[in-house]
């Protein structure tokens, strides 16, 4: 049986204390919130640490205000996806939280943990024994990339469902480091690097996510995965639109699982701004959005097909966002949980 390795479990009472512990241990320790990403990876020896720093002190409230909504980092995905305020004002965010992994994992997995979820690759998300047989890659224990052997970098895939939506909503995270606190837009939280994928300091704890409220924003998240019950995204689109009349004034389109970071489709955003949304525009926008997506052969199903599907998820997300307030919903791809 695959067992968890031995580790010390540290239990700080505040974020500052946690950050200081992280500073003291350096790479020999990691934060743990719900543990749904971390524990399987510890079993597979993708992470090797001496200590885990528990974040169970993090508050678990959703503070819906008239200007902003602040979601504490310790809120579970199950709570976020079923919170009335989020569903009403940030439908796409609730939708994304409700599509992460599976019901039991959403009961444990947290909003903060989901923003930090490790990048994925099916040469990497394997046991130590398998990776040893395949030959280790640079993300752990080795020095080459098995997907793109001539590449100097790692192409592991950003697989968070909520990060693209948080970016589309102009979300801002609060960070507590050993020496103080700061805010950082979620769009600045990631780097285009499969290995070193977070732009925050490893010692910094995410304490909350702030979503600036704008009741006119229409949002949607559409996720493609083999099984609606449990799988990570193999493509996903988060959109947030603001209209003046029929015309799109503001538009964010952020893709999940097609690059090593949540990929913002800026050209498509530019294209859509100032236009009226109809089937034709949606199709064109989706075509433009899909262009920069370059899936590789390191996730489920073929990358050729995944590439073609990017267009479809963007299209569906745009349709869904546009029609959401008109009572109609777009039928999602594949079988989705009820």
């Amino acid at each position, binding site marked *: 049986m695959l067992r968890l390795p031995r580790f010390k479990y540290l239990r700080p009472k505040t974020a500052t204390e946690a950050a200081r512990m992280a500073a003291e241990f350096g790479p020999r320790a990691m934060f743990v919130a719900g543990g749904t990403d971390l524990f399987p990876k510890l079993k597979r020896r993708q992470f090797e640490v001496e200590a885990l720093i528990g974040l169970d002190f993090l508050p678990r409230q959703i503070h819906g205000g008239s200007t902003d909504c602040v979601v504490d980092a310790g809120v579970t995905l199950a709570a976020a996806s079923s919170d009335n305020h989020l569903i009403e004002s940030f439908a796409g965010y609730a939708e994304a939280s409700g599509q992460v992994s599976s019901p039991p994992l959403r009961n444990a997995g947290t909003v903060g943990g989901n923003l930090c979820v490790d990048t994925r690759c099916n040469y990497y998300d*394997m046991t130590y024994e398998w990776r040893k047989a395949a030959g280790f890659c640079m993300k752990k224990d080795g020095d080459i990339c098995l997907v793109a052997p001539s590449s100097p970098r790692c192409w592991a895939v950003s697989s968070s469902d909520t990060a693209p939506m948080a970016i589309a909503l102009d979300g801002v995270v609060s960070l507590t480091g050993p020496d103080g606190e700061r805010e950082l837009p979620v769009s600045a939280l990631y780097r285009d690097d499969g290995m070193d994928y977070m732009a925050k300091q490893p010692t910094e704890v995410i304490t909350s996510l702030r979503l600036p409220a704008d009741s006119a924003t229409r949002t949607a998240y559409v996720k493609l995965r*083999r099984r609606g*019950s449990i799988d990570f995204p193999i493509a996903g689109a988060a959109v947030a639109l603001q209209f003046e009349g029929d015309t799109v004034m503001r538009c964010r389109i952020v893709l999940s699982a097609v690059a090593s970071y949540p990929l913002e489709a800026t050209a498509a955003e530019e294209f859509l701004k100032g236009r009226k949304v109809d089937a034709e525009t949606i199709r064109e926008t989706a075509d433009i959005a899909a262009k920069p997506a370059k899936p590789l052969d390191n996730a489920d199903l073929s990358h050729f097909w995944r590439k073609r599907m990017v267009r479809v998820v963007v299209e569906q997300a745009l349709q869904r966002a546009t029609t959401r307030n008109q009572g109609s919903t777009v039928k999602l791809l594949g*079988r989705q949980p009820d």
Partner: protein
Amino acid sequence: MTTTREFGVVGKPLARVDAVTKVTGRAIYADDMLLPRTLHCRILRSPHPHARILSIDTSAARRIPGVQAVITGADLPIKFGILPVTQDERALEHEKVRYVGDPIAAVAAIEEEIAAAAIDAISVEYEVLDPVMSIEDALAAPRDERIQDYGGPNNIHKLVALEFGDVDAGFERADHIREDVFFFQGNTHLPMEQHSAIATYVDGRITLWSSTQVVHYVHRALAKVLELPMNRIRVIGAAHGGGFGGKTDPFAHEIIVCKLAMMTGRPVKCTLTREEVFYAHRGRHPVLMWVRTGATRDGQITAMHFRTALDGGAYGSYGVASTFYTGALQTVTYDIPAYRFEGCRVFTNKPPCGPKRGHGTPQPRFALELNLEKISHELGIDPVDLKQRNFVKPMTRTVNWLRVTSCGLDECTERVMTASNYRRRERRPGHGMGFAISSYLSGAGTAIYWNDMPHSEVQIKVDRGGVTAYCGAMDIGQGSDSVLAMIVAEELGLQPADVRLVTADTDTTPIDLGSYSSRVTFMAGNAAIEAARKMRGMVVEAAAAKMGCDTSAVEVRGGRIGDFTFEEASVLAEARFGTLTSAGSYTPPKLAGPYKGSGVGPSPAYSYSACVVDLDADARTGLVHVNKIWIAHDVGRAINPLLVEGQVEGSVYMGLGEALMEEQAFRKGLHKWPSMLEYKSPTFVDMPEVETFIVETDDPEGPYGAKEAGQGPLLPVPPAVCSAVYDALGVWIDEVPVTPEKIVEALRRKEKGEPGRFGPTRFPAIPYPPTIKVEPPPRDLPSAAPAAI
């Protein structure tokens, strides 16, 4: 024989006898056992698909504190294997490894982590050989050397060629002939419980608790490899978390823990990781198939020629039987007057394939159903009509000598046709429905190794009013313990809860060949009826004597034997006869036809299923959404309808997984995704609604008329999915799994004016041996005929 009888418990949807222990977590699985001083074992496995072992250095591992023993192949050199003709496995290999995951060395340590570290410290020097990863590769001359040193030419393991009736004449008679090539991808069982075994060695005796489907075969393999007499080894089936065929072979880890227990004098346990379960495998063979069928203008089959090529993986396992199975049961659903079968199994450097639910028959069923479907479209006949016209009749023999007794194909078909409204289905873009049928054995008519013993035996002991039934059968989750309890209770006028069961223990229970080939209800059930009726005879006789009446006047029901409670009557009987024991056994009738290879296919009875799948398929993305499945299953008689429905729905689930996503895929010689998250299989949430119809045909030889339910209902699902996809989008996906990419590609081809199809295009040239021609038997089976033919 029992149709008019009123049953006490048979036919009632009673909860399983082990329901409470299972759902409250109190059942003790092998991995739950922790005997005092237990050592933990881990196994070093090959990182190469094909390599010679030049040296193994275990010295660093032995130096790690806490390591108690390290063994290699030199400690367990004797070969074993499930079939007598393919004794080609070693518990640990010290000469050559044949797939990534082949076991090489094992460590017993005081903690599992220490054992894992010790495994990592063993260094092995290999001479890497060219791996053979496909059927085509295996048929060609090996670049380095053959995988196994038997079989041949090249990496061919087994070749078969049989002809029944005059096939050439049959094709001559045909108005229409169609050839197709199909591929059925390999997949694995994915039981919830990983294999686990724990052994002790006390007073010169081995006791092994294991998650196995067949304690008897494990017992035999241990005796052979450990060179101990059978009576010094005891194998006990621990509570079981699912097998589906994957725990039907004796496994390396079972032998290893026994050996380590003998060496250390301490209990030794090994629970495989999920990844190792993918390597233990013995799952569905990938099979490439070519089928040629001739039919008259009105859709009557005149002849069929069927070729299969099985990718067997690195070892024999059940492979010889699997090969025959890919050709055996085509004739049991459709009346094929002339039939030729050519089969071939090859070795490749992958985990060995073996029996998975449906063993060797879902693949040809897939090809057969789709081939007939295509013929019906070409002839302009409704596919359901065409199939129905060719259905076998009850009480007949097939051209390849299989005896068909009860057969509910017509009724099954009618039930799903009516319920699904298939004939008047809604026509909208992307919506489709598909229909398919199938059949499966109720236990193989011949044993795996040649012997004349009964296939199942049951003993009953009645003592102080308590009834205990002893049987070697292993409940692997299908509910066989509950069925045994119900049968004994039925005969003694009791409730299942009144019957204590002792099962699957080679020391205390008589032989049963195990839980595979859908045999337990039929065979152990018949043995239990015999034993229980003998016991009933004694109790009734004692009661009658006391009542001063004839035995026929003693009523057995509701916990009473005539004027007495069961307990009182059993005391009377014990006073009269001494210790109350009875025994029953079951030996299937000799059904094999007069030709070599006829041992695979015969069964005392065949179950039948019919299925309709309703789905939406999206032309743009290729995504498929199954809306609903209707399935009717002829189980002869449902001894417990709840269990039958469970088996039918479980089969549908598994069939859907195989149809849509499951894939034992390899990349660079390695299993691509030996993990439950990456190897896709439907979960509860992914399951569509399933409506099950139980059809009862009261089989003349089944216990109370019962036949199998655990495997057959899987078979029609994959072909029904493919015909529904065709119905929806007008393209044929001639291989499983039907992934969205394949649908999109088939549609692209169709748009370009090419055939709208995805699947293999050619069947390789295979050096089949000269065909053995077999004279068909007389086809009618008078209902009064003796069992044997």
